[in-house]
């Protein structure tokens, strides 16, 4: 079965390299650049794992996280963000985020984490 990943970040370059990295590892990858786009894409695409940025225009990652988890509680969401403040970590964990990774990313660590979240799902 195909592993589906949705990458949400307002930086296109970040989406791009994550997309190419995971596609090389036999993932099917979609990208979105805002919270609203992410919700639309998630509905259509039905990803197993979502990599979600927090600070984005239109709708930020925390609001998007809440809706994404409400619509599909089974989806695994990994928060990927630039700033790590205790409140944001607590807030995202409270809203059901499955992990929290800060930029700049170690792609190796990220891949291991995504693979781990996929265990039992795919």
């Amino acid at each position, binding site marked *: 079965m195909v592993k589906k990943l949705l990458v949400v970040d*307002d930086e296109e370059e970040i989406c791009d*390299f994550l997309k190419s*990295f995971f596609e*090389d590892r036999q993932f099917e990858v979609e990208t979105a650049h805002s919270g609203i786009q992410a919700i639309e894409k998630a509905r259509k695409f039905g990803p197993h794992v979502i990599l979600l940025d927090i600070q984005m225009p239109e709708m930020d990652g925390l609001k998007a996280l809440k809706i994404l988890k409400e619509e599909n509680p089974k989806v695994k969401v990994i928060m990927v963000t630039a*700033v790590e403040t205790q409140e944001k970590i607590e807030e995202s964990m409270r809203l059901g985020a499955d992990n929290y990774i800060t*930029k700049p990313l*170690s*792609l190796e660590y990220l891949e291991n984490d995504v693979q781990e979240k996929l265990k039992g799902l795919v």
Partner: protein
Amino acid sequence: MSFHLRTTQAVLIRKAMVGAAFFLLSVFCLNTLADLKLFVFPAEIRFSLYAIAAFFSIAAALLLKPADRAAKHVLRDYVMRRECYSHLVLEELSEELLSVLNLRELANLVVNSFAEAFHLRTSALFVLRNCDDAFEAVSAYGWSASDLKKAKLSTHGLLGEILKKNGEHTLIRNILLKSVQWQDAASLEDEFRAIQGAWVLPFLFKGKLLGFLAFGAESPDRIFEQADFKSFRKFARRVSIALNNALQVEYLTRFNGELQDAQSQRFQVSKLKAVSQLAEGLAHEIHNPLAIISGKAQVLLFKKDTPEWGKQVEETLSVIIQQSKRAADIIRKVLASVRESHSAARDLEIRQCALDAAELLRYQAALKQIEVIVEGEASIRFFANPGDMHEMFAGLMLNAVEMLGSHGWVRIQIQAVRDSEAVEILVTDSGPGVEPELVEQIFDPFFKTRHEALGLGLFTVKHIVHRYGGSIRAESRLGKGLMFQIHLPLKRPTEQVMIEAQSLNGLTETISERK
């Protein structure tokens, strides 16, 4: 002339005067009787009759109380009315008091002069304190320093209650003790002991009890008379005015101190908040290009020894160069947003600053079909750094132009604020405005509604306005655009001076009102 009705000398003189009056009266009577031939007595006993009259006159003067009292009244009310030394001292003192605005100084002057004028062993001034809960001694004469520190009288005690109802009359311990029940008398006596006085002169200002003067220690060391109490009341009225002024000055000084503390504290907090906001935003902005650089490099590294490697190296490197430049740009802009201009400030025509800024934007605005309108009186001048003013106006206009997208107008209105040395700048646009809940955040560093923006424009504007002692406020009228209201003081007195000026104004009002 210093003269006293109760010194030994005065009493002797008074008695002598009474005796002389009696003697003259009896001599006159005897002579009248002789002249009228009603009673004829031989010349040889006339002398002994005079002697008898003299003896009785002396006896009457010494022993006859009503005669003495009458003489005293005549002397006090008609002959020596202005010459009573103590009363004169009080009157002079009450004139002097009005110029004393320091509470402690005032209290010292009152207690010392009062005690000296009436030859008292003790006197103490109490003032209502602790949110009207107790009277506290401010200054005392003839007390030990430790007594002064702990001397207090509750307003809820018996004496406190009596004082509240009593009005401006002097309370006399012995009379008061006799007028209450014996249970109350005991506690009342304790209270009199605590304030070390047998007499209590209340100070009322516009019906409000401000404090009182307690004098005469434990044993009454002298007896006062009706005229004294009358002069006490007159004195108390003057002291009350001075006391009220001094209390107000003390309150204002304390209030100012607290205000300044709070202000500097608030300033520190807001400064810290701005710094942490800036740092947080900077971290976020820098992390993105770093994430791209490191991500791209990692992806490339994973592709080592694959056919794609050679093709991707060039693309990855150009992205890395571009993102490093972006990071450097962000840092430069952040520094520019908070730096203070070092060029000299000068007298500027504020409307011209706005026009200059508009001119630079004209081309960019024209491309988007946006009209930039500057309105205002040319006469308003402002002492500032031209670079700051340019940056402020340009920041506001750019924000509006970017919010508008295309088609519309930005209006800058400059007007003097009536009755105050300030200028108000209104910036309105025909744009979409922002959500009301976001209005609070639009001045935050790195707050942005578009991805491309860095979000420092309005932060910089706010920074400049605050540096000139002004205030800025934003109002979003959804669908009708944003409105910014800037208030800039034309002259910038320091906060310290402003507060002092305000309190002084209040004070002179108080004093002139009292007079």
